[in-house]
């Protein structure tokens, strides 16, 4: 096409040949690699999902592998929720109808994780705002708070155990809530601090000039702008608390036993490996964070403050 207009301009060299074949090959290779890597990560989830629908004979038969359940069943879920089963597979009945139920432990998990999250959020948000906006505690305070998370909880769990037993918080939900709050509040401080830092200082000042108190400016002008970050932080902390095993294992026995600890107790014992029931409970444990995550997905995306300031 350029040659037609040679009178006007005279491009002596033609456009280079297309590099398409090489590029396509590169693209294909990239997709194969991505698929393989994704499959490695997705497999455990796939295995848990299918296992939770397998009847007992398919759990771990010697010399055989069931890639998909042959006979789909909800018995594992019934067992977890303590629903009596009539008829059906004899061996499954024996396991399922033992009168056990995971419900009390799920309830404990919900209370402990939610309570711990609330404690961490309330303390953490105020700490974070103080640090972000007023440099409260000096330059080192944020790092000192983060330090709380730098050693493994196991290192202090034994002394804590004695303390909790002594003051009567051991094997109580309140005891777990306080511990969960203490362990996760550094995350709240660090996450929320960065969200607060993104809110221009002038916004809280504008509110103050408009007639708010310092508290009013925080609740009416600043907090609404970080609600996305708040939701993300809450979810993150909730997942940490929800999936805790170690603290609950040491700090509870009976009354305050949480679902993850119960999950572990489904293993071994007279009935052998209860893979199907474990998988069903695991599915129940996975669901809440997954659902919350989807619900607040739009808040997880940053950028709510866009438009607040000139760019």
């Amino acid at each position: 096409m350029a040659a037609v207009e040679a009178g006007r301009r005279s491009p002596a060299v033609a456009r280079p040949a297309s590099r398409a074949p090489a590029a396509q090959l590169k693209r294909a290779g990239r997709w194969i690699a991505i698929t393989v890597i994704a499959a490695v990560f997705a497999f455990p989830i796939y295995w848990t999902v299918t296992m939770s629908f397998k009847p007992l004979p398919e759990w771990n038969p010697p010399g055989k592998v069931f890639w998909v359940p042959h006979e789909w069943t909800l018995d594992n879920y019934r067992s977890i929720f303590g629903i009596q089963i009539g008829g059906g597979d004899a061996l499954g009945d024996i396991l399922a109808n033992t009168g056990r139920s995971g419900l009390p432990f799920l309830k404990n998990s919900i209370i402990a994780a939610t309570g711990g999250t609330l404690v961490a959020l309330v303390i953490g948000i105020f700490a974070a705002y103080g640090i972000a906006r007023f440099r409260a505690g000096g330059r080192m305070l944020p790092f000192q708070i983060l330090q709380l998370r730098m050693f493994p909880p196991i290192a202090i769990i034994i002394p804590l155990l004695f303390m909790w037993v002594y003051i009567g918080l051991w094997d109580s939900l309140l005891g777990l809530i306080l511990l969960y709050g203490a362990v996760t509040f550094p995350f709240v401080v660090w996450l929320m601090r960065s969200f607060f830092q993104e809110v221009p200082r002038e916004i809280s000042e504008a509110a103050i000039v408009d007639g708010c108190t310092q508290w009013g400016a925080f609740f009416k002008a600043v907090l609404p702008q970080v609600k996305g970050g708040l939701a993300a932080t809450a979810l993150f902390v909730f997942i940490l608390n929800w999936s805790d095993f170690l603290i609950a294992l040491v700090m509870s026995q009976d009354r305050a036993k949480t679902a993850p600890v119960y999950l572990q107790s489904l293993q071994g014992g007279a009935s052998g490996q209860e893979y199907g029931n474990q998988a069903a409970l695991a599915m129940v444990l996975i669901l809440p964070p997954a659902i919350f995550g989807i619900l607040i997905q739009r808040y997880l995306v940053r950028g709510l403050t866009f438009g607040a300031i000139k760019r």
Partner: protein
Amino acid sequence: MAQIVLEDLSKRFGDLLAVGDLALEIPHGSFVALLGPSGCGKTTTMNMISGLEQPTGGEIYFDGQPVSHLEPGQRNVGFVFQNYAIFAHMTVYDNLAFGLRVRKKGPTKEQLDEQVKKVADTVRLGAALERKAGRLSVNDMQKVALGRSMIVEPAIFLLDEPFSNLDAAFRAYMRAELKRIQHDVGQTMVYVTHDQVEAMSMADKIAVMNLGRLQQYGTPDEIYNRPANRFVANFVGSVLINLLPGRYETREGRSQVVPVGADARAIDVSDRRAAIEASPGRDGGLTLGIRPERIRLVAPDSSDATIRAKVSLVEPLGAKDIIHLSFDGQDVRAVGAPGSRPRIGDDVGLDFDAEAVHVIDDETGLVLR
């Protein structure tokens, strides 16, 4: 030195047309400004010339050779950005020498010395060679950045709003310096800016862009005094051009336009008769554009007055006053010398320089001539 030809150059980002069918010829050794508001496609155009972006249509030629397939490093172009890229911990000398030292076949010490000194003198940094670049003023840092690009003697110089971080006084100084440097060195320079003052004052030719399209390509004089359309007329000039609704009529064989409003005198436009009569706006869709400095303030009863208006606001700028007048509910701006400042509320006559009245068709936005 190089000639740049953009042939129907286009760039799409998804659905967004950043640059559409841009055809431009930038002659050897000329200073061309790409001027437009943010988002007009000027930086995208610059990035395609430099090779940082691939065009989605059309071709770029340097001296007749297509260059679209070349990497930025192979195009022999020099850049200066808004945020000067300099090495703060090095001396000015080392900054300038850097581009030559990293070459595979480095120059000898003497050659290097000579070239660095030459460039330093060109950018007026000859006395600061031993100073740490990070210690320089913002203004001098930008000169270092300029020198760094110059020393590798690129065929083409691309500058993307290089002065926008500088203070106003220094910007005025650098404008003159850059124009002089370009004249002395004689390289092809493409200068991207949203500041019409920079484009007008420095460039040999200005390409005015809006919404990805070329609006007009011409000398500063053409752009200012013979704008192609409403956008260009409105975009250049440090005092907003006046745009008043007008109507067209023929009387006694003469073509004339009259500003819509009480008691306005006709302006003879017989020289543009054909264009106006062929336009869709001839029956009530015309706008008259006149630059404020082409309006003369006269006595309200003067026979020279095209329109009569009331002074509503005076903005003193020191060297001149901008006088806002109210004419039939519209704001008309004129420029006055600070000595003879009218009082707010005064009635004055406004004499339009007929030659400087642009007749704009409302539908197409084009200036009819």
